[in-house]
């Protein structure tokens, strides 16, 4: 049977859509991992970026798989069931998501025209008002760029969680490879690819919508590796 035929058969099997190993639950798991990790990263990174940006670069040499593995060796015995997949996954994803947010938030605030801040001060704004009403709106394109880069990386990298036996869309790919099930593997790849591109485009759209019309969104400095 040709690949197209196999794919059609695979796709016409309801269990592959909504069964416990089907595409829908995997997509939900993937979104839960990604969303949760991104949220933690934002909660950690945004205040740091805002603080150093208001008062005052990074490469990523560490391969995510290595990071996953290293966290695994530390947490596996420490908290048995969750330490095996959930904690390493979330730690790795959060660690991946923090740098772009901090860097871009910081860079965005640094690039705010000092005269705009002077003007704000002259109008009698307090520090927090200045941050909220002048600096953040002017730095928003850059802050959102950081968020977009992080979100795309997290969605892409959550795929690797399956290596540790966690769920998510990577499960379809890893199981597909292991069982030589080309259709499953192919659909896993399609869904992850689409999800990553949708995240990229979604955040780009948000960026256009959220940025004050007086400012052109700067072109992404978003060349960070997908995992």
């Amino acid at each position: 049977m040709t690949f197209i035929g196999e794919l059609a058969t695979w796709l016409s099997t309801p269990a592959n859509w909504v069964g416990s190993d089907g595409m829908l639950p995997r997509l939900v798991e993937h979104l839960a991992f990604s969303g949760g990790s991104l949220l933690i990263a934002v909660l950690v990174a945004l205040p740091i970026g805002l603080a150093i940006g208001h008062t005052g670069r990074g490469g990523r040499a560490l391969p995510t798989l290595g990071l996953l593995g290293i966290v695994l060796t530390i947490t596996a015995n420490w908290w048995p069931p969750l330490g095996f997949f959930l904690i390493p996954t979330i730690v790795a994803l959060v660690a991946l998501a923090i740098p772009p947010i901090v860097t871009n938030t910081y860079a965005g605030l640094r690039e705010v025209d000092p005269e705009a801040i002077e003007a704000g001060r002259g109008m009698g704004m307090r520090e927090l008002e200045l941050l909220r009403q002048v600096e953040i709106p002017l730095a928003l394109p850059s802050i959102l760029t950081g968020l977009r880069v992080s979100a795309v990386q997290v969605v892409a990298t959550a795929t690797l969680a399956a290596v540790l036996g966690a769920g998510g869309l990577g499960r379809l790919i890893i199981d597909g490879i292991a069982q030589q099930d080309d259709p499953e593997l192919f659909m896993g790849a399609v869904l992850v690819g689409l999800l990553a591109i949708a995240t990229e485009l979604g955040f780009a759209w948000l960026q256009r919508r959220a940025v004050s019309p007086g400012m052109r969104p700067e072109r992404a400095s978003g060349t960070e590796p997908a995992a």
Partner: protein
Amino acid sequence: MPPGEPFIRPDWVVNNLDVIWQRLIEHVEMTLTAVVVGFVISFAAALIIRRRRRATAAVIGVTGILYAIPSLALFAFLIPVTGLSFLTAEIALTSYTLLILIRNVLLGLEAVPPDVVEAAVGMGYTPRQLLWRVELPIAVPLIVAGLRIATVTTVGLVTVTALIGQGGLGYLIVVTGINGFFPTAIWVGSLLSIALAVVADFGLLWTQGRLTPWAQSRRSAA
């Protein structure tokens, strides 16, 4: 991980130096193949499309979006065609370097000030001389920046190819380490791939300094 198992067993490392060395060399070979092939293709492609504004904008936009596709997904797309092979790994790895390198070569060439080009044309430079003696030297920092990102990214992505039976140091991390419940291999594989990425990054930075001596003298003069 087995209880009581240390993070690193020095005796395993010493006894398996040949295995580790072999994986390290494999890692370097896979990275070099992808970056060199990617650079040659990107360089040629950038020279062809650079004068066409629309094509340039389209390529920069599309490569940015394709870059979002996870590596494992890209490998997975190729498996039905090229199987679990070195070729599958290299096609995916090279594609990622293309996305980074075409963009940076184009941006580098675009960053050449028009006055400089005009001055060179006024002095009678042919287009070929203009490219090799004026535009490319000025574009070197952005091109090398692209090569650095591409190389560091590829060193990281090569580890992922362990999932399709290749992998270099990734084999130690995934197969020997994670699948074999053996922390030592995870640490050795991870630390060596970090070291490799850092060494490659500094190596390229040093090369850039050698290629653009004028930038250095300007820096020390300032």
